[in-house]
């Protein structure tokens, strides 16, 4: 059951991305273009999706388990550390260069042609290259004392 719902939610999420124009690099880069031809579309996309999610979190906060039984995700925790700052800047650089990020990358795989495939392959490679770093961070998180 959870696999069916996961599939459906993934599909609706991706379809929302396409409708909103997130899979269109011109729209993404238009929003990141502060020089003159600024396109505010992405801001509307984030505002509406974040607005819905803010409601979702309020509902989730009052529950210990999701509908299908899994525990709700833990509270947002963790300090702002150098890896976060550096990682976000590196990510942003790539995002601005290509106009593509993970969600839209997958959502466009079936219709984005070879360009989509090349970006996706490179993205997966980048994730694999990060594996030693990810492992170290995961073990540090696992060993970290749980805040009271």
């Amino acid at each position, binding site marked *: 059951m*959870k696999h*069916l*719902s*996961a*599939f459906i939610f*993934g*599909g609706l*999420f*991706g379809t*929302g*991305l*396409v*409708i*909103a*124009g997130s899979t*269109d*690099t011109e729209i993404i*880069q238009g929003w*990141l*273009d*502060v*020089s003159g031809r600024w396109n505010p579309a992405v801001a509307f*996309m*984030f*505002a*509406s999706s*974040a607005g*819905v*999610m803010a409601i*979702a979190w309020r509902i*989730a906060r009052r529950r210990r388990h*999701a509908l299908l*039984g899994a525990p709700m995700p833990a509270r*947002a925790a963790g300090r*702002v550390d150098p890896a*976060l700052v550096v*990682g976000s*800047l*590196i*990510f*942003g650089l*790539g*995002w601005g*260069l290509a*106009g593509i990020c*993970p969600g839209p990358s*997958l959502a466009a795989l*079936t*219709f984005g042609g070879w360009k*989509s495939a090349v970006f996706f392959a*490179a993205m*997966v*490679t*980048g*994730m*694999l*290259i*990060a594996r030693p770093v*990810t492992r170290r*961070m995961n073990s540090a998180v696992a060993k970290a004392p749980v805040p009271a």
Partner: protein
Amino acid sequence: MQEQWIDALAGGTLAGLASLGFLLVNGRITGVSGLLGGLIDGSAVSDRGERAAFLAGLVVLPGLYAAYSGAQTHATGSVAILVAGGLLVGFGARLARGCTSGHGLNGMSRLSPRSLVASAGYVLAGMAAVALLRHWGAL
């Protein structure tokens, strides 16, 4: 185009509802880099099937919609930029433990400090990259 902001609102609402569903029904966050990264680098242990199902839906269903809508990516034809962009996005997302869907959508909507900082980083660096591309005449 004038309808673009309507599409952005509609698509954003749909994506938000899908994320709401994934959270309240599956108890999971629609952080794509986390879902994908955990699968491909083996760090996800117990929930591989659920991650794969979400990602499969994310790939397949938008394709059906795009066939009807004729959506285009308008991606660059420069292999160098696609490769460089992909490497940076993949590596950076793992380092930051999240991407625009994880930190940007799910994290910011619950005012997570890490996510606010990460999102600021994404946008600032993204704007710098686009400014660079414009400066080089590549955009």
